[in-house]
C-alpha cells in the first residue's frame, strides 16, 4: 500500500520552508560567535 505514490507537494513546500528557516537561524547564531574573548 505504501508503494503507491501520493501528491504531497504542499508538505514538501512546508518542509523546505522549515529547512530554510532552520539554516538561517543556525548560521546567524554561529556568526554571532566570531568576535569574542574566549578561546578554549
Amino acid at each position, binding site marked *: *500500500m*505504501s*508503494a*503507491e*505514490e*501520493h501528491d*504531497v507537494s504542499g*508538505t*514538501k513546500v512546508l*518542509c523546505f520552508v522549515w*529547512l530554510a528557516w*532552520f539554516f538561517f537561524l*543556525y548560521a546567524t547564531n*554561529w556568526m554571532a*560567535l*566570531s*568576535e*569574542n*574573548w*574566549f*578561546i*578554549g
Partner: protein
Amino acid sequence: MSLATPDKNWWQPLDKDEKMWLKVCLLVALGLFLMMPLFHLYGKQNPPTRSYRVEPAQYKELVDKFIEENAVRDEDGDIVDMEGIPVVEPKEGVKDIYLLSQKWMFTPILKLKKGVEYQLHMSSLDLNHGFSLQPKNINFQIVPGYDQVLKITPRDSGEFYIICNEYCEIGHHTMIGKLIVTE
C-alpha cells in the same frame, strides 16, 4: 488510522518523497555533526576544558594570595577598592587570575590589559553561581568544589559587568561584579 492495529505486513518500502526527505534529514544531521569537530579545529571560540576539583577554603586562599600580590594600592600602600571590593591589576607576566563568587558578590574587580591572554579561574564558596559577562553576553556556570579555567583575551577596552545568572537565593539579583579592560 493511528488508532487501529496496522496491517500485518506494515514493513513496506518508503515511497519516493519519503526517501527524498530521509536523505535530506541524514544530510542535515551529517552537516550538523561535522560542524562540531570542525569548529573545534578551526573555530575561534570554544568553551573551556580545564577544570580542577578544589575545596572552597583552598580556593579562598588562592584568591587571597592573588589579591595580596596584585592589588592596586594607593600611596599609603592600602588596597584600592570600589564599593568595598578590592581592585586587582595582575602584574606583568601574571597569567593566572582568580575570581571568587559567593553570596552575593564577585571578588575582586579585575583590571586587565587589552590583547593580553589570561587564565581566568572561577569557583564558588557556597552555591552554584553564574558568570555572565555583559554586554559581551558570554556565560559560564560556576560550581562549588570545581575550579573552571577560562582562557581569556580581552579584545575591547572599557568597563564590563559580570552578572550572576544562576539563582543563588534571595539576594541573587544584587550579585554583580565589574571587569575593567585598559588599553
